[in-house]
């Protein structure tokens, strides 16, 4: 076992542990912190594969931006995880059975051929080749179309988020002279006609 393999197993072990803790931790803040740990270790795994750009992006975008936001949200909202987990035990047996069945089937299909540590057949990359540059070039040539599409998907997300949450500047109290002038008596007062009740 050379150094690289050792590192791989080390990082993988941490990754799996962190992943398990994300879903088992009682404290939501702990869960998020474990998620950050998981991201870190997977970034490490990518580094092993010489994908240094992706590793950096993962750290910067996911940990630097997304997870910090997550942490804020979790801390501010004070989510009661126990409440969320109420049905957990009730559905655990069924869920576990289905999960195990699917896992077994996956294992049967993929296990024998793909779940082995193989000698890496990936051709070595020249020492001075730039990951970033390659990706950039590829994204703006062959993959320009999906790249643009991804941008549009983000635009959709922005529009959707604004449309769903922006409620207009309603809270500010201001007077609209035009509206004041336009108003008619009928808009202000509603005359309700009722039959006179007879007294017996």
């Amino acid at each position: 076992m050379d150094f690289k393999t050792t590192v791989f197993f080390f990082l993988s072990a941490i990754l799996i542990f962190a992943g398990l803790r994300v879903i088992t931790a009682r404290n939501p803040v702990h869960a998020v912190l474990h998620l950050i740990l998981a991201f870190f270790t997977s970034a490490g795994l990518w580094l092993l594969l010489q994908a240094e750009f992706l590793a950096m992006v993962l750290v910067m975008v996911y940990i630097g931006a997304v997870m910090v936001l997550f942490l804020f949200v979790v801390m501010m909202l004070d989510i009661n995880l126990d409440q969320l987990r109420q049905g957990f035990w009730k559905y655990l047996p069924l869920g576990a059975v289905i999960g195990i069945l699917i896992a077994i089937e996956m294992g049967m299909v993929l296990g024998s051929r793909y779940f082995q540590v193989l000698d890496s057949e990936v051709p070595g990359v020249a020492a001075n080749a730039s990951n970033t540059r390659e990706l950039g070039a590829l994204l703006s040539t062959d993959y320009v179309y999906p790249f643009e599409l991804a941008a549009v998907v983000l635009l959709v997300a922005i529009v959707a988020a604004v449309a769903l949450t922006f409620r207009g500047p309603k809270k500010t109290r201001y007077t609209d002279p035009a509206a004041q002038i336009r108003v008619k008596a009928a808009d202000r007062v509603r005359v309700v006609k009722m039959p006179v009740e007879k007294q017996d």
Partner: protein
Amino acid sequence: MEMQKLYLLVALAPLFGAAVAGLLCRVIPRWLGHTVTIAGVAVSFIGSVLVFQDVMAGNTFNGPVYTWMTTGDYSFHVGFLIDSLTATMMLVVTFVSLMVHIYTIGYMHEDPGYNRFFSYISLFTFSMLMLVMSNNFMQLFFGWEAVGLVSYLLIGFWYTRPTAIFANMKAFLVNRVGDFGFILGIGLVLAHFGSLDYATVFAKAPEFANTTINIWGAADWSLMTVVCICLFIGAMGKSAQVPLHVWLPDSMEGPTPISALIHAATMVTAGIFMVSRMSPLFEMSTTALSFVLVIGAITALFMGFLGIIQNDIKRVVAYSTLSQLGYMTVALGASAYSVAVFHLMTHAFFKALLFLGAGSVIIGMHHDQDMRNMGGLRKYMPITWITSLLGSLALIGTPFFAGFYSKDSIIEAVAASHIPGAGFAYFAVLAGVFVTAFYSFRMYFLVFHGEERFGKAHHDEHTGDHDDEEVSHDHHHGLAPGQKPHESPWVVTLPLVLLAIPSVLIGYVAIEPLLYGGYFEGVIHIDKVAHPVMEELAHEFHGPLAMVAHAFRTAPFWLALSGVVVAWFFYMKRPDIPAAIQRRFSGLNAILENKYFFDKINETVFAGGARLLGRGLWRGGDVAVIDGFIVNGSAKVVGWMAAVVRYFQTGYVYHYAFTMIIGLLLLLTLWVRV
């Protein structure tokens, strides 16, 4: 005029009337509504006469009018096949329809749905014409469904009556069963013959004489037998043969004019027409013919018995229709297609007459349909009386009347037939003659003769028959004490008189050319070697007058006569006898009262069995039927269904996700192989 355009005109004129009266039913006044539809049907009738003359002159037509669509290797046309069979049907349909249209002016006089009703019956006329004029199975099926739809609408015409809604649902469901067989038959034809055109199919049919197909297990079935039986199941639904007959008596919930037009004269005979059309196919399967024969015989005899115990005037006529349809089916089974069509024609006239006569009586009695409240109407409604008498005489087969020629021909045809089941059928049709005469004249005597029982508060005396009970609830006004019935207006009596003429004469005029004069040459194919019935009949036929002379020496005449005499004796002379019999044979009476328990069997065995099978559909349908469709807070059905739905559609997103995952697991397990 070019004939092709005339054909189109015949078919489309009633459609035009229906469209005007239907789409504008709230806008146009009543007189316009009936004028436009009657004009449409009248045009159609005149056109039919011209077409008939043209066909008589030897001009037939078979060709597409419009190509509908092409899918795969098949294409569908709207096409007409105009030959002697079509022309005959066209004449019958348009004539009876015209009479019914005129009659309706009087009958529906007070009804708020006046224009709507005219629109429906015109639409029906159009659909029926498309059915009979079709030159391919596709159009036949369209017409078939269209007449079914209109019939469904008309049975439920008085939709505020729960019984009417029940009846139309029943008609709808039972007819679906028949249609299922019918469409399977058409599908088989398409699959094996590769075409839906009659001409092509008939030409190819001999090639398939020995083809067998494998339906279930290892048994091989003759293709032609399966096709014919499937098609005939369709006919059983539409022409109300046992056991798919249950809808027809209930269909009497509809207004009387449509009972005459749809449920006696035309639509219910569509099955008979269809089988005659398909004679080249049916001739190739003696098994199928035997099946037809036996079903027809059962219907002819056993439905006749039921006519005896009915007290509702329309139901008597309805059961009589069932029985007569059985006769026609028997004729088909005996390979005497032309005789079946002949009886179809005479029956259309005299049964429409009887129904319209009954309707006239109902008008006179202010919508009281119970015969026990009538009697002695002869004095008050002379035209109705005399025409009904003529109709009844025709029905029971009095020599010289129309029904005599057609019915006697059927009996002789069955006697001459030697296919399996013919012996039973012969007994059934012979016994049926007595039964027919008995119930017809029971009705006649109860209604027109004897003591005047109307004008008394009879309603509380009802016993037993729960169908009558239901009818009596809302539309059952009856005459007030001291009130006398009076003759109906001329719009009602004129059609009676006009229908009485062919009821008397048509048999004498038509029998010779229709049955023995080569009228159906090239239209109806008979395998003369295997089924030589018509040959034998022709051999014994020596003209219509000779037939009358011969009749006095045969059993049917004496049976009919004794039926009349017994009816007279029981209901005029000694009314206490039937009551005594009813008491003595209460078990038999119960069977008849419950119509052989067909409804019960349907509800318990079929519905119950299906419940075990699916639980979903039938309970839904069944309860839905009882509640007159489930809407409007029918809490039971919705509650039950909702429980099932709720079981899955919980609203919890993780349940949904679970369902998806389970589905995925299912697919994985079924398909992934290592």
